[in-house]
């Protein structure tokens, strides 16, 4: 139920797609951080974060996205964020993070 998060990962060849399913909150965010940072360190590829099934994220989670982006940029790579639900897209706009990431429909 609340606070659950499933993370799936798929290698698309030229990028890695990560599917977030559930809620990223202060309790589940450490797992997200380990996962994203791990992927970025292991692969010299762009990262695509699919948020189709992401129902909730807070500033802890957004901060991890920002941290991951910094790491990716050090490798000259980008992070694409796709299929954001309206309530979460709103958080990206509020915080100005929509200008930092490449947001896709």
């Amino acid at each position: 139920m609340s606070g659950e998060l499933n993370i799936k990962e798929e290698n698309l060849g030229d990028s890695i797609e990560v599917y977030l399913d559930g809620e990223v909150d202060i309790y589940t965010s450490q797992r997200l951080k380990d996962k994203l940072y791990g992927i970025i360190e292991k692969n010299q590829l762009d990262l695509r974060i699919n948020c189709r099934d992401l129902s909730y994220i807070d500033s802890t989670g957004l901060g991890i996205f920002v941290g991951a982006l910094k790491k990716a940029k050090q490798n000259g790579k980008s992070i694409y964020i796709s299929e954001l639900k309206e309530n979460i897209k709103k958080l990206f706009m509020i915080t100005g993070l929509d200008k930092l990431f490449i947001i896709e429909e």
Partner: protein
Amino acid sequence: MSMPVDNIELLLPFKAEYVSIARLTVSGIASRMGFDIDTVEDIKVAVAEVCNRIVSIGSKLSKYYKINFAISEQSLKVLFTCEDKSIRCIFNNEDAELAVSIIKALMDDVEFCTDGSYILSMTKSIGENM
């Protein structure tokens, strides 16, 4: 201004694993008050940001913090309190930037760093932005 108010209080341990309880409780309260589903979501996010910050800072003096929900016809006011007086001005730090912008944008009225006996208060009015 002097409308009858119902109070609900939730006392939670300083632990990240229980922030989801605050989210669920405030969702229920806001839904029951008749806020639309998007506004319920906004209030939930704002409340969680404060809880996150409180449990991240932690306390050596107090095991619990309290969330008071003051329910009136016009608004929901959420007040955070803790016996540990060192936990007061918890958002005046650079790493709280994201949380602060979220809280300010989603709630109608927020009091950070009050002189009073509480940590923070924030209010969402019914009918505004709906």
